[in-house]
């Protein structure tokens, strides 16, 4: 009977499929179990991924998604999009471009939140909760199983702000051409600004130094230093560590302060800029 034969071959085929499927499932769950052992170390705190499961469900899943792939329920309405943790690519790092962030980097990011995005400030968690969340964030990406974080860049002690340094910082800004994206006055309107896209081909704007917003990866002098030396991976913002020396990097930090609006942290730099009568760099000057 052909129908009988058909039935049998169906049965055989489904059995084979089922077998294959369970084998597959077991391999992934084995992998998953390994990943659930992910931990994090921040100072005296040790975070355990599984301890963050509840917090993640309650506070993060709506944006970052059950699978950590950035496809939470509300993600479709957000711009920029929530981070896809499975890729293991992060903006805020103390480590060189192309390397994983340290546990401490993620720990700080979670508390700080990311300005100009829907990523909230999470400063109500205990440090232990945050350490656990770091481990949970890491567990989504196979990169953290295979690689170690990069070695954090070294930041020398911050020197005194002087007019010479502010002036030298402007020369660095001109030489390495930050203005191509950020604009000569730091208003996010350089000649390349309007065409920028992130690694997922979504339009992205450079940081506007003049509108009073906070950098995503921190606002201290050390944070600013770190930002342009390591770059923001996943975005057009490159790393400059090969071409800006540590001394020059501090000069550049001081000059960037002069672009920001009047505040308590940049009084001195703004005063110096005024005394020097500092004008924006000339984009048409030949390269030095």
């Amino acid at each position, binding site marked *: 009977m052909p129908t009988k034969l058909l039935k049998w071959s169906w049965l055989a085929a489904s059995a084979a499929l089922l077998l294959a499927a369970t084998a597959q499932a*077991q*391999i992934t*769950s*084995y992998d998953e179990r390994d990943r659930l052992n992910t931990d994090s170390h921040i100072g005296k705190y040790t975070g355990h991924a599984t301890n963050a499961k509840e917090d993640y469900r309650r506070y993060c899943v709506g944006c970052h998604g059950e699978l950590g792939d950035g496809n939470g329920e509300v993600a479709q309405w957000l711009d920029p999009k929530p981070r896809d943790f*499975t*890729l*293991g*690519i992060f903006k805020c790092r103390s480590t*060189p*471009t*192309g*390397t994983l962030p340290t546990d401490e980097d993620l720990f700080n990011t979670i508390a700080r939140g990311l300005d100009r995005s829907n990523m909230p400030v999470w400063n109500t968690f205990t440090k232990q909760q945050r350490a656990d969340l770091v481990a949970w964030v890491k567990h989504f990406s196979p*990169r953290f199983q295979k690689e170690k974080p990069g070695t954090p860049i070294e930041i020398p002690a911050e020197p005194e702000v002087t007019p010479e340094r502010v002036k030298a910082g402007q020369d660095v800004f001109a*030489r*390495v*051409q930050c203005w*191509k*994206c950020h604009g000569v006055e730091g208003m996010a309107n350089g*000649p*390349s600004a309007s*065409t*920028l*896209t992130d*690694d997922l081909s979504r339009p992205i704007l450079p940081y506007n130094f003049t509108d009073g917003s906070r950098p995503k990866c921190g606002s201290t002098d050390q944070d600013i230093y770190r930002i342009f030396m390591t*770059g923001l*991976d996943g*975005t*057009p*913002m*490159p*790393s*400059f560590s*090969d*071409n800006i020396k540590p001394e020059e990097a501090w000069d550049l930090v001081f000059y960037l302060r002069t672009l920001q609006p009047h505040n308590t942290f940049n009084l001195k730099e703004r005063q110096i800029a005024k005394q020097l009568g500092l004008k924006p760099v000339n984009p*048409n000057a*030949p*390269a*030095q």
Partner: protein
Amino acid sequence: MKSHYVRKLAAVLPALVLVCAGAVLLSQKVNAAGGGSITGTVKLSGTAPHMKGIDMSKDPVCSKAHDTNPAKMENVLVGSGDGLENVVLYISQGLTGNEAPSSQEPTFAQKGCMYTPHVLALNVDQKFKVTTEDQTTHNIHPLPDPTAGNIGWNKSQPPAAPPIETSWKNQEVAIPVKCNIHPWMHGWFVVVKGPYATTDDKGSYTIQNVPAGSYTVTAWQEDLGTQTAKVTVAAGSAAKADFTFKGK
């Protein structure tokens, strides 16, 4: 119980694979020196797609470099006799997978706000240099597939910057690379194992140092996709494989 079994299997399996691989390796002595080659041409049939001119007016340094020789897109370059340039040919089947990377250190140059070459073929772990000859700042930003094992990065190269020396850890056909400052700049790294070749402006190529054996050769073109051919290489002689891609 069952999961224990799977765990054990997972532990034993790699060892088993290693033993088998070792046996295969021993039985097939790789001798590239006395090896043959694979040679041929890659052509385009039909009309070549139009390569648009590039407006570089946003950066005067770039547009000045092309004063007399206007820049055009380089996705599909057709030379004399319909030869297709920048097609990468590599052996996709038949190698042991244990070939040592090429010891040559090629250069990927930023020149006149274009990439030279537009396509750079490389072995896994083969060193290469990224250089700049331009009086404008570039950022060099390769974008490998993050799930395929290579890790992207993004570095600035201002005028007179020293070369960046690096390599790729995993096979990947192909890794796009771009400059965010000059959005028209895009190129490719094609990372393969074993001997490879890239077609010249006549569409000709020769893959050197191929040990005697039977292989599948793959031809990769960035817009037109891939094609394969089966070849058998006898010791010390040249096997032929021609390819034709269809124009749109």
